[in-house]
């Protein structure tokens, strides 16, 4: 559908291109790493794609100040490498970090499993620069860690799916890399999961991430017990990791889990596989939903969603976040025709469980027959007015966002 793809070398060039499209009435999509392209709706129109591929520099790493500034097209992996040279990082967790760009990930407002521990990725943004459809280049915030000068515009661009403007630069607070990182994986015997989840949530040393998994064989480490498996990530000092490991093992033991595998050397990769699985598709015969809610209800919600899918004769892979309450449910079938037959009925049933579930992955033909965003938020009219004020000609990603924005 996209007629042309342009990868500007500078922000000014991007602004000129965008403004020209806006004048000419063309619809523009913005491409980062294309990793979350299947999240949300497909744009109604796309005449031109503007890629941030060449806007991929680390502009500054003020490591003594614990801040950095990047162009939007830098990948998550590249940013991590650069910051690691001075022992720092920004906690942005998202799938496919070698392809995913910082700009794209933030524009999608992706929510990672370590956010209860470090805070949301959006909370690390201290400044931004965007290009608006009319070619205006506007900045907000700055390079200081505390700033209440004017509206916090960056918040509006984060999670807006490029419907207000093109993010061209982001400034972040950084953190020192934790001394150690350790992953723990355990098979969950029958009936243990409802006991395991509250045990993990109550640990004195909070895990950096904790997810229950069911399925996702080969893509996520470990093997399923009858109740699946649990993945836990610990981050901190030596002393804390040792204590947390002891506490965790005895907590899991109390919940009826006999054995825990420790992964020290490959903990990073192990976390990456969990993140990648969140949007991993099975050919043209799967859809992945994300449903948000409270940690307290997460186990029950995940079970209900899975059971509903199984009743609709769909295969399921489940990944739920014990600390934050997110459920990822991937439903699939043997072949695309069988999948197409069953998915619509299930989608209705799922909407009854969570009308605001979002489709985050799946192939286009089937996705386009479903409502990717579910029920719009209560303030949708305010959001429509916002779109109208920033992009009156609906140049940017028309139809990509909630409520047809």
């Amino acid at each position, binding site marked *: 559908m996209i007629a042309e793809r342009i990868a500007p070398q500078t922000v000014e060039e991007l602004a000129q291109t965008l403004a020209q499209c806006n004048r000419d009435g063309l619809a523009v999509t913005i491409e980062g790493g294309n990793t979350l392209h299947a999240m949300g709706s497909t744009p109604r129109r796309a005449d031109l794609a503007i890629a941030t591929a060449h806007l991929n520099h680390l502009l500054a790493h003020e490591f003594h100040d614990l801040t950095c500034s990047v162009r939007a097209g830098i990948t998550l992996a590249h940013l991590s490498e650069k910051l690691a040279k001075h022992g720092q990082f920004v906690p942005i967790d998202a799938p496919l970090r070698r392809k995913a760009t910082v700009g794209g990930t933030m524009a999608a407002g992706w929510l990672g499993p370590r956010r209860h521990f470090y805070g949301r990725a959006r909370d690390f943004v201290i400044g931004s620069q965007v290009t608006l459809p009319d070619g205006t280049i506007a*900045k907000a915030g700055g390079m*200081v860690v505390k700033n209440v*000068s004017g509206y*916090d515009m960056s918040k509006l661009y984060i999670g807006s799916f490029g419907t207000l403007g093109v993010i061209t630069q982001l400034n972040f607070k950084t953190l020192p890399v934790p001394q150690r990182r350790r992953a723990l994986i355990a098979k969950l015997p029958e009936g243990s999961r409802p006991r395991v989840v509250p045990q993990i949530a109550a640990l004195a040393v909070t895990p950096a991430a904790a997810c229950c998994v069911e399925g996702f064989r080969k893509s996520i480490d470990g093997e399923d017990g009858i109740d699946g498996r649990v993945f836990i990530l610990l981050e901190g000092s030596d002393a804390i990791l040792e204590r947390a490991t002891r506490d965790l093992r005895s907590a899991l033991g109390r919940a009826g889990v006999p054995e825990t595998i420790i992964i020290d050397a490959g903990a990073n990769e192990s976390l990456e596989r969990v993140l990648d699985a969140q949007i991993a598709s099975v050919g043209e015969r799967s859809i992945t939903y994300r449903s948000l809610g409270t940690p307290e209800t997460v186990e029950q919600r995940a079970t209900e969603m899975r059971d509903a899918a199984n009743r609709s004769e769909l295969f399921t892979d489940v990944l739920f976040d014990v600390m934050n309450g997110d459920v990822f449910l991937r439903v699939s079938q043997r072949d695309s025709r069988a999948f197409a037959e069953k998915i619509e009925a299930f989608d209705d049933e799922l909407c009854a469980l969570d009308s605001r579930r979002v489709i985050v992955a799946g192939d286009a033909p089937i996705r386009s027959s479903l409502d990717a965003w579910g029920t*719009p938020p209560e303030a949708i009219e305010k959001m429509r007015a916002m779109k109208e004020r920033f992009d009156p000609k609906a140049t940017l990603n028309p139809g990509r966002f909630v409520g047809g924005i």
Partner: protein
Amino acid sequence: MLVQRLIDALGADAVKTDREDLSVYSFDAYSEGRLPTAVVQPSSTRDVAAAVKIARDCGEPIVARGSGTGLCGGAVPAEGGIVFSFARMNRVLELDVRNRRARVQPGLINLDLSKHVANAGLFYAPDPSSQKISTIGGNIGTNAGGPHCLSYGTTVNHVLGLEVVDEFGEVYQTSVEESGYDLTGALVGSEGTLGITCSAWVRLMRTPEAVRVWLAGFPDVESASAAVSAIIGAGIVPTALEMLDRLALQAVEAAFHSGYPTDAGAVLLVEGAGFEDDLNVYESQIARLVREAGAISWRSARSEAEREALWAGRKGALGATGRIAPNYYIQDVVVPRTKLPDALRAVEAACDARDIKVANVFHAGDGNLHPLLMYDRSEKKQVAAVIEAGNEILQAAVDLGGTISGEHGIGYEKRETLTRIFTTDDLATMARVRDVFDPKRMLNPEKIFPAGVGCAEVQR
């Protein structure tokens, strides 16, 4: 007509129109606005909505107000109008211990929230120095900080969702966990110009297992600043890292007897929170780093009483300066942390040139300076000199790559200086948001935006 309608909607005891009452609501901790037409004290979201509709019908500006502790005129009625006081909406509506969150009304005092949830092993992290009097609603309006936002983040990082009354008097909810534009993030820190918060879901944090406060004395602010850089540079982010210079610590010690070394030229107050094992390691690391930076004294406060005594000094510092001069003017600027020594020199130069006494009490770890310029309000010359010096300090921060407000806000006082860090395009982009939420500029008018950045003149 207006007053009668307000009384009909909210009850006579919720509407104030006596001159003495009104004059109380024309001030904040910094400045004076006009007398409002009326002050309303709503008891519910419905009251707020009803009063907004009436104010709108009558063309009266709307100014939401917490405790009036603001330092930049954010809550003063610049054009008169109706002041909304949230004194009656001060309850914790829901406490959800398992999911570590609470829904609170805007008039709730910041510290009362932490007290309310302490038994559940939780606390509310943002802790502006005004936390004994300032309200959650006011804190949301300014995106308030405080010493502990160094590691916990500012108010916006702790607000999960809002119930808002818009300019039409319609109620809507926002949540950071739902799809759509992050209206929560945009509303926090918007100083009452985009809507009126009627309740908020806030994040609560677990009370740390162990807390320690360390106090290091230095011969001068230079060496103390060097220690700040060394600590941050070593990859240690304490929960708080505060500095007081000689004049400030002497005033504090005279007032509170907190145990600050009065022979020092500056002190650093460092707090670590977490686990005993980690704190032992941090303690020895920090002790070494401050010694290398030239510290002349070192104390570790382990008991709660000792810690509280040290904190009481820091949090009461503004009041304590009353011993030095009848009035103070507090500036709030931020610079990149490594620029602290330059910024402090600029503060000193600006004040020395005008013979102004200055005390520095500030969030060193964040690079957030709060010079307190001492003066006597009855001396016109002094007032002028203090304003001039404040202005010079602000420009110095901008020149060092910093910003004009870190936590107090822009309000009325700083709005004309916003152009020093933002271009017309930057400000016009912000004004687009205002256009969406408040096209007629009835919500807290004359705040944040410089005069002239309205709607019409910046539209393309």
